């Protein structure tokens, strides 16, 4: 695109955003003036490589009609310009916020920002190294969204006096490896569970606005629609090769479902004050998110986890308890407790993984719309 975008939030690509005019007009606050007052948080994203030849070999012809429609929709960028603060962005009294809630909420924002940022780094790398135009276009569009979300969260953090430090580039970074099919399973689930998490909070706060303690929650709907579209793209990618969702790979799918759900459960229980302030019961929230994610993932995964099985909640509780003990053992250098807690966590995970899954036939048409 040669036309210079007026504002980078209105740009179609990261490159366009970078050449937008608002750079020159941007209010630049001096790093040195604010550095002392700001608490510095170094972002530490991980760097990945994958089998780029395999990615290039993807042929989207079997899903061409759905693919083109989705890419066109992403290109049209319905959320263009959405991630700007407007009059709905209420003032937040950060100093008056209860310290435990503040700590947990900031942790929530920093972890969300890091995840968006890491997604952006991964997608951008795939865009750069690939040569298949269908695939590079998709990853470019997703990198655009992730960078936009990261910028939005970063701004909320700045209001709280947290400066995100991007100085990690000049530290030695090791590149780890991720097989393409694991990227599909993990990022598909991560995008869809992200959608389910954000929309569940959004709908809850719609019904209970008195619990909305920060304006960022008002932006969750459009935000999670981006996550939903990204998930749709990965579902279509998996649809191009039936081997990805059959045979031994079903065991991998089950592994990723269990790992993602269990990790979410454990992490959410680390933020009791955050969930209390939202007026959300953490167990209810977890179950609701698992239910939505399971329903959505039937579009492409031939199994769903039996989250109503009596062993499911028990296993999650055991994993959570082992995790708390593990952290305590690490913090205090207790070697035997650490070994014991690690074994318990491993057993709890195996216990969850071995709950029989529910099988079902895949629908002929993969595409879904966000309806929650």
């Amino acid at each position, binding site marked *: 695109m040669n036309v210079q975008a007026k504002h980078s939030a209105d740009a179609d690509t990261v490159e366009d955003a970078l050449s937008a005019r608002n750079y020159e007009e941007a209010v630049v606050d001096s790093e040195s003036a604010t550095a002392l007052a700001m608490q510095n948080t170094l972002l530490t994203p991980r760097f990945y490589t994958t089998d780029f030849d395999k990615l290039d070999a993807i042929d989207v012809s079997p899903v061409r009609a759905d693919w083109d429609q989705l890419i066109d929709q992403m290109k049209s960028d319905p959320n263009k310009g959405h991630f700007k603060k407007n009059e709905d962005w209420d003032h937040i009294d950060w100093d008056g916020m209860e310290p435990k809630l503040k700590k947990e909420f900031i942790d929530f924002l920093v972890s969300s920002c890091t995840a968006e940022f890491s*997604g952006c780094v991964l997608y951008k790398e795939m865009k750069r190294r690939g040569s298949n135009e269908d695939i590079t276009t998709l990853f470019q569009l997703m990198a655009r969204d992730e960078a936009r979300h990261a910028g939005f969260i970063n701004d909320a953090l700045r209001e709280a006096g947290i400066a995100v430090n991007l100085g990690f580039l000049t530290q030695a970074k090791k590149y780890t*490896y991720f097989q393409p099919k694991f990227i599909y399973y993990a990022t598909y689930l991560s995008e869809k569970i992200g959608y389910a998490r954000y929309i569940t909070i959004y709908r809850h706060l719609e019904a209970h606005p008195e619990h909305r303690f920060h304006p960022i929650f008002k932006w969750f709907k459009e935000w999670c629609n981006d996550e939903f579209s990204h998930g749709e793209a990965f579902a279509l990618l998996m649809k191009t090769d039936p081997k990805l969702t059959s045979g031994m790979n079903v065991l991998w799918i089950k592994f990723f479902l269990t790992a993602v759900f269990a990790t979410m459960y454990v*992490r959410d229980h680390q933020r009791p004050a955050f969930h209390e302030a939202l007026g959300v019961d953490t167990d209810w929230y977890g179950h609701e998110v698992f239910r939505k994610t399971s329903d959505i993932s039937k579009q492409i995964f031939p199994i769903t986890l039996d989250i109503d099985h009596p062993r499911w909640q028990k296993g999650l509780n055991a994993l959570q308890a082992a995790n708390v003990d593990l952290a305590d053992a690490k913090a205090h250098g207790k070697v035997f407790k650490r070994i014991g807690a690690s074994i318990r966590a491993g057993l709890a995970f195996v216990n969850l993984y071995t709950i029989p899954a529910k099988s079902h036939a895949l629908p002929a048409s993969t595409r879904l719309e966000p309806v929650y």
Partner: protein
Amino acid sequence: MGWMTKTTETAPCEVEVSHKFESLHAHVKFLNGATINPGDEVLVHGAPVMAPYGEVVCETRTATITRASKIEQIWTRMTGDFEFMELCEFSFSEEVSL
């Protein structure tokens, strides 16, 4: 690449850091076409590239790429997948109780 030995090389690179409301990102692009393989390590020379809030900074720098040995590369390919949880939105915090 040796089976046990690491080699190093330097490459010119472009570092772009955007610290803006609309986009927060940071990328390194090698200008000589060098590509990174599993287990390789990249170090961009010089002071941290810092973009003040609201700005994008692009700088040309030199990077040292430490190539993993063949064994390390195979090891990274085998084990790297288990770090995938870091991609999930909720999985970054290291602290168990806040």
